């Protein structure tokens, strides 16, 4: 029994190690001093890549584009997605089931099909769509919305409607009730959903690559440059994104620990 116990723990730790290994390699190779154009073999330690992170031409611009599209598409998708979630959870109406299906479908379609079909629309000579920044924005809103709906919905389902009714009974009008009761209650879910949306947007390559035209987000930039060279600065940017994301996530985990301990203390 004890042996089996340790066997399982060892296996679990090995898989965790497997998951962590490439991350460690990405960070390690951001400090490499490669001799050729490719950053595949360890040569020597340097801080230069971090000091001159934007030395490769186009890297800074692609990062700015990624951030702009991430923020814009997340804001729009969070608003649209929260509205859909409110409608689906709080109301019974004709077409509710098909709305659910329409939200679910993009998540279960391979990314390459999403990208290809958007490009099929955008290459039509309609004169409306110019392939570039705004077509990337449109695509990102489209695939993020579903994830926002799912995340906010999960929160809304466990939500006490009596609080809103109480506010209405106490004479609050609809807008005041929404502002003072509903919104504060769903705000954490909207924040969590938008963080997820932003992460999805920053990371997306496949769909973006199809609808980007000449515009470069960070992943598109990496794809283009990976064929001719891989400057270690690419690892620097990836490591920086990772460290920021992990700091936010760790903060969230610690905050959960603290609030659960506080709750236990109160009870």
């Amino acid at each position, binding site marked *: 029994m004890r042996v089996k116990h340790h066997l399982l*723990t060892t296996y679990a730790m090995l898989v965790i190690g497997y998951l962590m290994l*490439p991350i460690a390699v990405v960070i390690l190779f951001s400090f490499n001093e490669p001799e050729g154009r490719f950053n*595949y073999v360890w040569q020597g330690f340097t801080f230069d890549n971090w000091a001159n992170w934007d030395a490769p031409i186009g890297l800074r611009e692609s990062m700015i584009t990624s951030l702009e599209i991430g923020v814009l598409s997340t804001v729009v998708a969070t608003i649209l997605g929260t509205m859909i979630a409110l409608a689906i959870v709080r109301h019974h109406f004709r077409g509710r089931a098909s709305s659910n299906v*329409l939200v679910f479908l993009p998540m279960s379609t391979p990314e390459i099909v999403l990208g290809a079909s958007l490009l*099929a629309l955008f290459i039509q000579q309609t004169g409306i769509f110019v392939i570039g920044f705004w077509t990337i924005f449109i695509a990102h809103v489209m695939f993020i919305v579903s994830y926002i709906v799912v995340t906010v919905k999960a929160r809304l389902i466990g939500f006490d409607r009596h609080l809103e009714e109480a506010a209405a009974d106490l004479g609050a009008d609809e807008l005041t009730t929404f502002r003072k009761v509903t919104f504060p209650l769903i705000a954490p879910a909207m924040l969590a959903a938008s963080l997820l949306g932003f992460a999805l947007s920053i990371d997306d390559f*496949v769909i973006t690559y199809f609808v980007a035209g000449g515009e470069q987000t960070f992943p598109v930039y990496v794809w283009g440059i990976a064929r001719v060279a*891989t400057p270690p600065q690419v690892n620097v940017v990836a490591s920086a994104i990772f460290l920021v994301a992990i700091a936010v*996530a760790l903060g969230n985990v610690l905050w959960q*620990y603290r609030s659960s301990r506080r709750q236990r203390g109160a009870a």
Partner: protein
Amino acid sequence: MGSFFHRRKGLVPYLLLSPGLAWLAIFFIVPLAYLGYQSLKSGIFPTYEFTWEFSNYTEAVSDYHPQLVRSFVYAGIATVACLVLAYPLVYWIAFRAGRWRNLFLLAIVAPFFVTYLIRTLAWLNILADEGPVVGLLQWTHVLGEDERLLATTFAVIAGITYNFLPFMALPIYVSLEQIEPRLLEAAKDLYASPVQAFLRVTLPLSAPGIVAGTLLTFIPAAGDFINAELLGTPKQQMIGNVIQAKFLESLDYPTAASLSFILMAAILVAVLAYARVVGSEKLTG
């Protein structure tokens, strides 16, 4: 808010829904229709004409069935590998990790915080010919002196496995976490051995997670082209590579569009077949 809904209850849900659903309709449904339209065109770039060219589909299948079959074989192997790697891990997290659960869950999603392309490129470092893994395998004679890992089928499947492992792990974790500890205690009280308790209680109760995880892993894996492109050679090309190259490089829109629909249809068939097997097993079990 309540009275607002009651007074105009008919309209409100539609007002809330319409902007978001309109976005999905215009930029998800309409594009699919255009993709269908492109797939039935004929001619040479840039003058494709719509001619109900259904032969695009039969030609695409006869020209690219090796890549199509390969996509599904690779995705299938990777899905099984993900299950074998993920299940014991999330089992351990759910039942043994105690208060450190959330930290280990974070470790599972941590790879997502490194850009997809970059974490795939990291496997180039790890599996490099001069790297430590190849060195170790050659030293132990698992690999011959001039054999390598990069640019092999192994590398491509390993890359897909790594990239989609979290999609398998998280749904299984959710289903394991919901299991009532009292059920396992009851099994123990009724003299079930740990193995019996696992096979008769834990495993069936985690089946929904396995089903969800399998779908979430298999569907994106079958459409993937990044791992084959970065870690493989033309011999490992998947259907995604063909669609990508036809659409963006040779600008052969009709073939690319019909291949996209063939991929979707094939995935649908695979999913339905899987649902049948899972359903019938549940019935007989």
